[in-house]
């Protein structure tokens, strides 16, 4: 056990701290989840790339910083930004999912055209994966793209397209080979959200806000070369990036910050002459959550250490999405309970605490438990890949589809 990163990393950490001290005031505040980055946020993003604090390992010729991958340096950057409470680089789906996909499977022209403006925040992307009939069973998607006069002609509907209203572009899974087995008939297309034939309808959720959209395609024409990878290979192209999304949903720093916010709330929230923290039952629940957050934090250190050795994450990594999303939800639940009747105040009410953020979180985090691979799909993955338990018997599946399923099983996902 050696938790020191080593002297060269101490120097690097000091550099990051210096940067944050000198430039931290230029960071934009309150980047809304679904918002297009403001001009300040774009400027901040460019500054971060220039210093290598985001887009760090993306080659220079595509607009990144071009550093050799160094997991510890990336970790130090994340730690220091989190500690300073300063927003790190943009973390939208274009950057976290499309860019890695293009780097791995895009053509040279696609890399040159799309990566740099995406990293800079000048082009915003949305993701067109899920459909009303294709959630956990994503490969059942039906949105069709037939070829006609040198274009794909697309018809169908996507759901859970966050930022579709603000997005310039979409990366989208469509069925191009209707007669192929279900995983083999899908292609990964990229096209402009200004293409005629797209309609975006906000999808209001239980939080009362429309964090997502439904996106409808009617006879949409997309040139044949706007495909990433080969026709019929879209399932495998998309799977190259799903891991990135799962990683995003389990950030131990984020849990730690939520827990600290809960501690402050319980110390501040008055009950009679005392505060919520004085209540032994609430306090007991708080310490139980604190222990779980600690476990996830050290689990994250173990994953980090494993990847330094070149090991895959193993079980430690497989459990992160399931455990972290549940834990975040429980932290919000305790905050609501600590507020008692005040906990139900919402919609900008008199006496509302922190703009109703805890209730919003409590509801939205339930969405995160369901999205990005439901908790139940996560449990299948843990059982089948982690514990090597037998797969569900498949009934009446044609042999060819069976083969494709075996390769990709479990890589299902729910929300975008």
């Amino acid at each position, binding site marked *: 056990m050696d938790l020191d990163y080593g002297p060269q990393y101490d120097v690097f950490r000091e550099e990051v701290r210096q940067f944050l001290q000198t430039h931290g005031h230029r960071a934009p505040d309150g980047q809304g989840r679904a918002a297009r980055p403001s001009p300040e946020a774009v400027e901040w993003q460019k500054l971060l790339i220039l210093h290598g604090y985001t887009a760090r390992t993306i080659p220079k010729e595509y607009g990144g910083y071009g550093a050799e991958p160094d997991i510890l340096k990336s970790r130090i950057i994340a730690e220091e930004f989190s500690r300073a409470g300063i927003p790190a680089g943009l973390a939208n789906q274009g950057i976290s999912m499309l860019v890695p996909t293009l780097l791995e499977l895009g053509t040279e022209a696609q890399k040159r055209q799309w990566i740099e403006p995406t990293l800079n925040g000048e082009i915003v992307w949305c993701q067109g994966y899920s459909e009303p009939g294709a959630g956990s069973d994503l490969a059942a998607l039906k949105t069709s793209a037939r070829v006609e006069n040198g274009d794909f002609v697309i018809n169908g509907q996507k759901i859970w397209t966050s930022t579709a209203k603000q997005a310039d572009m979409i990366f989208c899974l469509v069925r191009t080979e209707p007669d192929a087995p279900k995983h083999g008939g899908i292609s990964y297309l990229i096209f402009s959200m200004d293409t005629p034939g797209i309609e975006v309808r906000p999808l209001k959720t239980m939080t009362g806000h429309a964090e997502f959209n439904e996106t409808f395609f009617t006879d949409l024409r997309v040139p044949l070369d706007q495909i990433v990878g080969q026709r019929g290979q879209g399932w495998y192209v998309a799977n190259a990036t799903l891991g990135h999304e799962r990683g995003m949903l389990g950030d131990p720093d984020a849990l730690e910050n939520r827990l600290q916010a809960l501690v402050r709330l319980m110390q501040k929230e008055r009950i009679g002459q005392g505060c919520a923290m004085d209540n032994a039952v609430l306090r007991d629940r708080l310490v139980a959550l604190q222990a779980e957050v600690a476990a996830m934090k050290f689990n994250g250190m173990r994953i980090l250490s494993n990847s330094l050795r070149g090991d895959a994450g193993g079980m430690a990594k497989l459990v992160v999405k399931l455990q972290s999303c549940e834990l975040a939800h429980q932290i919000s639940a305790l905050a609501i309970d600590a507020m008692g009747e005040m906990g139900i105040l919402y919609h900008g009410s008199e006496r509302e605490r922190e703009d109703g953020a805890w209730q919003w979180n409590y509801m939205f985090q339930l969405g995160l438990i369901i999205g990005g691979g439901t908790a139940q799909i996560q449990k299948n993955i843990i059982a089948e890949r982690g514990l090597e*338990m037998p797969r569900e018997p498949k009934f009446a599946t044609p042999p060819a589809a069976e083969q494709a399923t075996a390769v990709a099983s479990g890589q299902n996902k729910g929300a975008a």
Partner: protein
Amino acid sequence: MDFGLSQDQEMLCDAISRTLADTCPLDHVRECAEGSVPFSDNVRSALGEIGIWGMMVPEQHDGLGMTMLDAAAVAEQLGYAVAPVPFIGAHVLAPLALAQGGSEELKAHWLPRIAKGEAQIAVAIAETVEIRDRAGVDFDGAKLDGTALFALDFLEADAFLVADTAGRMHFVAGDAAGLEKVALKTIDRTRSVGELRFSGVAGEALADDGGATVRRLRDAGRVLLAADSLGAGQAMIEKAVDYAGQREQFGRVIGSFQAVKHMCAEMAARHEPCRSLVWYAAHAFDATPDEASLVACHAKSHTGEVHRFVARTSTEVHGGMGFTDLLGLHFWFKRIGFDRQVLGGPEAVRAEAAALQGWTQVA
């Protein structure tokens, strides 16, 4: 940066695991558990050859002077095999207490014997966590009076180390006048705890350090109970997965049913992060004493909760067989039950964690 066990620690674990696989099969555990004294001579001598009895004894007293992370790695293996041997009390807490506060004579006499596996000292500190049944041992400057419960590694102990109500440790010979020893029978027949009744017993007080030694013992004990629970929990998950992969009902193995699969996945998902928590708590004991007590509390209380869930869920996956004595799964179930309660159940430990952070007045 290397979070986890070192190569040496992994080799130690492998050696213990192989030794226990050879010397400590379930039939042997059952034999020991059904005897009057649970401790297995065979297992003790086999493990002695690896040298673990002196791992926490300082080198100048013929021990190996190893770390708490080493001890946690060993405890995990012992829990995995439900090994009926004294360890946490006699081979970790006792040498720690003696090394920290014992006189030179005490150290010179007892530490080498502990290291050789020739002496067993039981340790009683339960009352420093919670007073039950009005227990507690008073020290009037000369003699000890009162009762200490749940002395760890009790049966066949040659001597005792006991905490008084002021938090000072005392060494008491096994045959001291005025000392009455009563074994307590617990669910876990692979370990031994007992009650010590003192009437005017002359012991030898260890250094008065304002409770510092007792605090270290409590932290160490909690980390190791958590590590033991980690091993027992790991075994229960593996057994559930194996059983579910073999048992057939409705024409298919039950492990292919999602209901069963999800039970196993939940166990694994809750269990796996515990490993990092226990490792970190052990490391903190060695390297960052300021946070050691708090993380020891977290490790103890959290593994207590998670492994109670694992113990009952694994039993359920085994169906009716899990409930029988024949299968022996209950040895692990009970080991986990013991680990959860001893040195403070989760609620008591969490209350202490809250107090450590200034979130509450100490009651």
